Structures are given as structure tokens and as C-alpha cells.
């Protein structure tokens, strides 16, 4: 029905997740591994191909080696997972010329969404609302001043080619705009050779809501509901859930439909996520589109019963979506906790090491996605995610309670984990009430 062999260009929990669907579909997964992962338990008994040394820059981030590995192992498709090169248009383009089907959107769609002002302009045309700010790029400091005066302070000046926080300045008030403009421009010019800036109202607080969309190569698109990922630390999501608490039903419905329109209007293909900021006034404002599957896609899978990786592979093979919008039923409430090998009482310091004993919780409405087993050594080279626990129940409170029970059953001896923090959050009154935003973790004060 589709591919016989598929290269998984990723590691850990991601690779295990993609392989599970491959197994179910009768596709042989080939794991691209770095030297550090070559002996890991999760690839035992699997077909692997080594793509380089432990350092991601020499292995999981090397598009040329990954495509070569696919060719050598006779894989006709490549799943990038999420993270690493999943949003690199170059990998998608490289796959195309080498005859390997990239399980993801075309390079052009990835590229468009990676560009800040063009992405926003495309989404605005399709009817999504943006955070107030400049209409595209700024021509001068004077224009920045005019726009800032119109949208209100504080404002954020951002570099069009920026990244990693460079080329970004806050202007607190009208007297501050010229300084912020010049500083941001100088930094952007030196770092990226591109002095162009745009401006946005700086929103403090707010909630993070995202919408899962899916489009096939024939332009048919659906949405699979929303997720709320407001519980974050330094922009790292900790807890995701669906449906989103505190979202007006009309705004939700309007934005779900507009997101599908937006995705099809740019020729998008496959799974994608529109990320929004939910403002205190109740409106959703588009921030960016992730052109890949998300870590937290499991939340959506639990509510819909649809295997998103399966749909991705089918769409990549040129099939139509297996469900229409009317077939999508969003049932109950699902919540996911990301458990990392980090010490929450020591500033979330990553804690690589050997896990002596591991036991995943089991129970009704509980799903655990992990690559970890007793004896697994957490390598120091990559992110420290150990597992994701997903709980599903009829109501939010019931799902939270199930999650708490599951976390109590989780056994991890050998490295500290963030599970205690999750327990504290789930027990917290403010969390249960939905009374929090992205600025602070409810029920938990990092030491």
C-alpha cells in the first residue's frame, strides 16, 4: 500500500513513536543512530544505520548523511520526527532530488513558515488574527515610532532574520523606540547581515493555544481540535491538554476553521500546528506555524483515536486523508506531562546517567510514550526527555486525577526526574481552576 522501508531520522522517544506506527502498517523502520545511540536498548533487534558521532551537529543535524543513510539502507521514505531537521527545508529538498519521499510538507511550505513576516502576512490573508504590530517590515525608526504609538506600549522590535533572542529589543515607552530600533538594527546587521526589523506589541502573560491541522496532497484539509500548552518554563512546554480551558467556543470554532483555510491556502501538506497566543481579551492571535508533528500530538490522538503518524505516512504516499472533518470526533479530555531527567529542585539541571530501575505506569486511559527501560543510560548529548505520560478521561478533573495516579506508579531509580513538579502542578488549585498564564508555573516555584 505504501513504502516498504522507512528511515527514521531521529532518536529516543520520537524514533520509538514513529516505529510503532511503521510496525502496525507493515513498513520496516530503519533507525538512523549516532554512535551514542547505536547500542541503546530502544534499537535492540531493530535495523540501524550509523550516521555519525554523538554530537548532533555531526549526526542528527547532517542532512547529507541522513539522506545517504536512507539510500544505503534502501529506504524509500524518511520520517524526520520532530526537533533536529524536521523543519529544515534543505532536508526536504535534498530528499526530493535523491528519490526519497520526505514525510512532511514540501520544502517551500517549510521555508515560507520559517520566514517571519511573510508567514504572518500569508496567515493574515487567510483570516487569522495577528498580534498588533507593523504591517510587515519597518522602513525607518520614524515608522516604528508611529506603529508603536498606534498599538500601545510596551513593544518588541524583532529582526526579520533573527533567532535565539538576538536582534530583539523592548521599548517600554515612546521615548524608548528610537534607541530600541537602533540597537536591534545594529545587532541584527552584525549578526545576520540583515538589518530589517518588524514590530509587535509585547504581550505579557496570555495563554498558549495551538491548533492541529492536516492536509493531503489534493488540498483537502481538516483540523483535529486544539491544545493548550500554557504551562511552560523558558518556552519549554511542560504540560499540554485538550480541549483548552478558558477558550470561548465561538472564538475556538472560528479559529479552527480559519486555520484549515490558512493551511490549504499556502499549499501546505501533512500535519501542521498553528500556534496562537490567547490574549486576556479572549482573542487568539497567530504566532507561528510548526511544519511538523509536535511532541504533544499524543493529546490529540487520545481525543480523536486517529494515529497521526499513520496519516502522515499515508499522505506522503499520495493517499487521501482517511477521515473527513465530519468523521473527527473529539472525545473527553486528554492531558500530557513531559517527564525529563532534570532536577527541578536544582534549577532544572539536566541529569544524565544510568537508570537502574524503570517502570512505566499502566492503567485505564493512560498512555506512555518512552524509549526508556531499566538499565538505559541517558546520554548527555541530547534533550533529557524520558517519557510522556498521557491521561484521558471524560472530564479535565478526572484526567488530572488519573494522571496523578499514573505519576505515583512511575518508577525511575538512578536519575532525578521532573515528575514531582508535575504532581505539584496537578494538585494546585489555580491549575485546576485554569487560573494561570505563560509567565509562571502554577503550583510550583522553581528554586
Amino acid at each position, binding site marked *: 500500500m505504501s513504502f516498504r522501508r522507512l528511515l527514521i531520522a531521529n532518536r529516543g522517544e520520537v524514533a520509538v513513536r514513529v516505529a510503532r506506527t511503521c510496525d502496525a502498517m507493515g513498513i520496516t523502520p530503519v533507525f538512523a543512530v549516532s554512535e551514542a545511540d547505536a547500542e541503546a536498548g530502544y534499537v535492540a533487534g531493530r535495523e540501524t544505520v550509523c550516521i555519525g558521532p554523538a554530537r548532533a551537529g555531526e549526526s542528527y543535524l547532517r542532512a547529507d548523511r541522513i539522506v545517504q543513510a536512507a539510500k544505503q539502507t534502501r529506504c524509500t521514505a524518511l520520517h524526520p520526527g520532530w526537533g533536529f531537521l524536521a523543519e529544515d527545508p534543505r532536508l526536504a529538498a*535534498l530528499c526530493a532530488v535523491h528519490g526519497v519521499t520526505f514525510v512532511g510538507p514540501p*520544502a517551500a511550505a517549510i521555508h515560507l513558515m520559517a520566514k517571519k513576516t511573510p508567514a504572518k502576512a500569508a496567515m493574515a490573508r487567510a483570516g487569522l488574527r495577528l498580534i498588533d504590530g507593523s504591517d510587515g517590515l519597518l522602513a525607518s525608526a520614524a515608522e516604528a515610532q508611529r506603529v508603536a504609538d498606534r498599538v500601545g506600549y510596551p513593544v518588541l522590535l524583532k529582526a526579520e532574520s533573527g533567532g535565539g533572542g538576538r536582534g530583539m529589543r523592548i521599548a517600554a515607552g515612546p521615548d524608548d523606540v528610537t534607541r530600541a530600533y537602533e540597537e536591534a538594527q545594529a545587532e541584527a546587521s552584525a549578526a545576520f547581515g540583515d538589518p530589517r526589523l518588524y514590530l509587535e506589541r509585547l504581550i505579557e502573560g496570555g495563554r498558549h493555544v495551538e491548533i492541529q491541522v492536516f492536509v493531503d496532497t489534493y488540498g483537502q484539509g481538516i483540523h483535529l481540535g486544539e491544545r493548550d500548552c500554557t504551562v511552560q518554563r523558558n518556552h519549554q512546554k511542560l504540560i499540554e491538554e485538550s480541549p483548552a480551558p478558558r477558550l470561548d467556543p465561538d472564538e475556538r470554532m472560528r479559529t479552527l476553521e480559519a486555520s484549515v483555510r490558512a493551511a490549504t491556502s499556502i499549499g501546505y501538506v501533512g500535519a501542521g500546528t498553528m500556534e496562537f497566543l490567547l490574549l486576556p481579551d479572549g482573542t487568539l492571535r497567530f504566532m507561528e506555524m510548526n511544519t511538523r508533528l509536535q511532541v504533544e500530538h499524543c493529546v490529540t490522538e487520545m481525543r480523536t483515536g486517529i494515529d497521526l503518524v499513520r496519516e502522515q505516512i499515508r499522505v506522503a504516499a499520495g493517499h487521501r486523508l482517511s477521515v473527513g472533518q465530519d468523521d473527527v470526533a473529539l472525545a473527553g479530555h486528554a492531558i500530557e506531562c513531559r517527564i525529563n531527567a532534570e532536577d527541578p529542585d536544582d534549577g532544572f539541571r539536566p541529569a544524565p546517567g544510568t537508570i537502574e530501575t524503570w517502570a512505566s505506569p499502566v492503567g485505564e486511559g493512560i498512555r506512555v510514550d518512552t524509549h526508556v527501560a531499566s538499565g538505559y543510560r541517558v546520554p548527555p548529548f541530547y534533550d533529557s526527555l524520558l517519557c510522556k505520560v498521557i491521561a484521558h478521561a471524560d472530564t479535565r478533573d478526572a484526567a488530572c486525577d488519573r494522571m496523578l495516579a499514573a505519576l505515583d506508579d512511575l518508577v525511575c531509580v538512578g536519575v532525578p526526574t521532573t515528575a514531582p513538579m508535575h504532581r505539584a502542578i496537578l494538585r494546585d488549585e489555580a491549575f485546576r481552576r485554569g487560573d494561570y498564564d505563560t509567565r509562571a508555573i502554577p503550583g510550583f516555584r522553581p528554586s
Partner: protein
Amino acid sequence: MAIVPLHPIGRPRTAFCDDATFAEYREALAERERRLDERRAEVHAGWGEKYRARVHAKGKLTARERVARLCDPGAAPLEVGTFVNYGLTYGAKALTSPAAGVFTAFCRIEGRWCMVIANDNTVASGSWWPATPEKIQRAQEMALRLRLPTLYLVDCSGLFLPEQSRSFPGARGAGHIFKKNSLLSAHGVPQLAGVFGDCIAGGGYMPIISDRVYMTEQAYMVIAGAALIKGAKSQKITSLDIGGAEVHVHQSGCADVRVPDDEALLVCLRAEVARLPSAAGDYYRGDPHHGGAAPLPPAFAARELLGIVPPDPRETYAAEEVLARLCDQSLFWELMPDTGREMICGVGRVGGLYAGFIINRQGLLDDPEHRGRKRPGGTLYRGGIAKVSAFSRACNDDGIPILWLQDISGFDVGLDAEVRGLLGYGSSLIYTNSTNTVPMFTVLLRKASGAGYYAMTGMPYDPVVQLSTTLARQSVMEGRTLAIATYNTKLDDDFEIVTSDPEERAAIERGMAETAARIDADMDPYVSARQMDTDEIVAFDDLRRYLCAFVEMSYQNVGYRRVKNPRIWSLHDLAELTEGIR
């Protein structure tokens, strides 16, 4: 989609060029690019505001305004020949002829690339100066090579008669324009003419061969205008009465359609172009959902070219990094990488379409003839010449447009070079390039010296277009080299002046300095552009826009040239033969 083994090339700028060096190069270049902007603005101003106002007072648009309205929204014209006649003056009044009084540009109209030739009615009523006919013919030649629809926006009072002897009689005299009109027509290239005003004598012939001729109510076409008729036949009659729309649309049939004004005419021309077959670029790119390519920028920003090529021609840089900033997604298939490493040959996508690149590698490279020794890049040796010849032939065979990126000091010289038969290998390359029919485009990045300039398809080898950057230097040899050659007998083996007589010594020093200075001044790209030795001077960060357009034009029209799909490229055979088991 056929497999083309492209690979990632290039590195992030910070990996090979630190911020300080980048800033230094950028600053040095910015100075030159500022000058380019200023001079371009000066040319675009024509004879100035007074003449623009005069055109507007007649209810007409200027040539540049007409072209702007003709182009698709957001698609700026790609001008060629901006600096023809730049800095030259004519007659006792020292009249200038900005852009030689004619605006020639590749324009995107209704999604199709066209050549637009527009008489500049703000410069001596659009009359033809010395070099104007050659410039028009050059534009027609570009259009002919690529089969681009050609549009004439005619508003021309004829030859600028005080200088007639320099534009009338020669092989490329004004009349040759009409031969080009005929050749374009004979090759099936659509030509459209809009007559907006004066169209006298030679100008009168220019529109007629076009498939469709539009006239505004202010336009007339005549073999001789009212003034001449008054003298010759003592008749008092206006030019409009002699050859206006009333005569030519309804009585003579020399024009097809009359329209009230400039705006209406431009709308009609766009509609004509829309009736032509659509551009084939997307066909050759393929469906991006099924392995095809959409136009994508390089993975490393093209604008970084502003700071990675050192303005001093003696300094070196990594040519791969230039390619990485010109190819889509910085993906490139280098052919024969182990032979003639002083040259890089390969295929990349530009705006989603395949093009062949040939560029000089710079810096010291291993000398394959002498183990352990080095020799400078930017030079043609036997291996490189043979490689370029084979690649150029293969691209021609496969119908892949070739982009030549020159930064070359010339052929290797000396006994070794002669023994290895560089004259023969070079001639083979010259033969190849001379007989290629695939569209070729040349960019002079920096040095374009000696026979290297010829061998890499410099202007004398008929590239469709040749661009110069602001750093380009065309010469047989550098000024200092010529100074040494000129004073050879007065110098010792280390090129030091032999004489001890202070006066003679001073004279030689002065002579050498003058020789070097004169040559250096002549290597100015504006001198070259002025005398049509290069087609256009382009800013580094504008290069990719031009190349994307050239490649797209090369694939726009089907049926007139070979375009093989990548499955049957002879390049694959070449790779197999030269690289063995892969």
C-alpha cells in the same frame, strides 16, 4: 522526478569569515554600491525634471513610467545597458545621452518575461544617439536568443542628426534594427509595438514589422515629418495629419489599433501578452507535492555576498561559499570534483530550475603535477580547461543553461604550460563555447583577465547577457603588469629599476605609474558599460535576482531548443565516466 544528486554546500558565514572581516568587506563594497545607486539614479533622471514636466504637460507618460505600468505588480524591470554612453558628451553644448536615450529591460508581464525597448522621451525627444542603435540591437539579440516576446514603446524623433555619422552607416548602424525586427519575426518571436508620439524616419520603420501596432491619438508614424514636407513640397500640414492614427489605422493599414492615450495603450499591450502561451517554468519545476521544486532561496542568505568577496582582487575567498549563496537551498551537484580543482563545475537550482555553474576556485591549491607544491587558483590549467570544456558541452547537450562566474587572472603561462598544450586545450574550450546553442550568461565577479575572460564566455563569445559587479575588472593584464612589460628593458630580474641616474629613474617611475594608473582607470566597470563591453553593472545582493530571472527566461518558451529531463542528462554519463564507482 529523476534523481539529481545535489548535496549541501557552504557553511554559515561565521564559520569562515568573522564579524570584523565581514564588516570590513561590506563597508568597502558598500561605498562602491552607493556609487552605483547614485549613478543609476542619475541615468534614470534623464535630462531632468524640466523634460519630465514637458512630457507630462502633453498628457503623456515618461518611458520609465510606461515600463513600470507594463510590468506585473511587484516585479521590477531588470534593466540592461543602463550605463551606455555614461559620462560621454556630444557637441559644443556638451549634451549628454543618459542610457543612450533608450530604456531596455527584461520585464515580467502577465507572468511572462519579455524584452521591452522604450525610447526615453525625456532625453532629446527619444532620438537615437551614437550607440543607441547598437543598444537596441543588443536587446533584440537577447530577445532572439531566448525567444522572448519583444515590446517596443516608440516615441522617437529619429536620429540625433548632429552625430549622424556615428550611428547611420555602419554594420550596426540604425537600419540594422529593422533587420533584427525581421529576424525576430522570422524566428517566430512575438513583437508588439506601441507608438506613443513621434515616430519619424528610421523610427517610423521600427514598429511596422511587429505583429500588432497600437497608436495613441498623439502618435504619428512618418517617413518624413512636417518640417521636411514643408521644405520639400511647400505643403503646410501637421505630422499628425500626415501619419496619425487616422491615416495608418484606417487608410494605410500600417497600424492596427488606435487608443486614446498612454494608459489605454499599456493596458492593451498587457492584454496582448496575456494571449501568448503561458510560461513553462512551472512545468520544468514540477509539482512540489510530487518531488518537484518550488523556487527557494539559498540556505545561506544571498545578501551575505555583500561581505564575503574581498574587494581587493589580490585577496582570496571560498568560491563554494559564493555558490552556496546563489543556489536554491545551497544544494549543488559538483561534477568531476577531483580533476582541475581550480575550477568548480556543477549543477544547482536557481529559482527552482536547473542551471550549470562554472566558477573559479581562488587561493593556493595543490599542484597535481608536482606533489607537495602549490599553485594559485583563479587561473586556467590543463585539467580545469578540459573539465570546463566537457561540462560546457554536456550542459549544451542537455539543454541546461550555463552561468559563468568569472574571477580569473588568465591562462597559466611558461614552458610547462606550453608543453602541456594549453593553446590547444584552450582552443577546444573556445570552440565548445563558440558553438554552444544553450543560453549562457556570464558574471564578472572580480577579475576578467586575458584569455581567461574569453575562455569563460566573456562578451566576445556571445553570452546572452554579461553582468559585471562593482568589483569587475576587464583587461588583458593588470596595470602593474603592463607597466613592467613596457619598461622591461629598464628593469632587473626583480623588477627593480636598474639605472642609478636619478633623473632617468624618476622618469621611469613616473612612466610606470602613469601606465598602471591608465590601465586601472580603464578597468573601471563604468568604462566597460559605457562602451557596451558589459551589459549591466549589478550589486552583489542583486545578482541572484538577475540569475533567477535569466534561468527562468531560458525555460520560458518551449519548442525552440533542447531541454532534456534529468533522467537522460549526459551529465550522468560524465559523472560515471570520470568518477568511477560511486
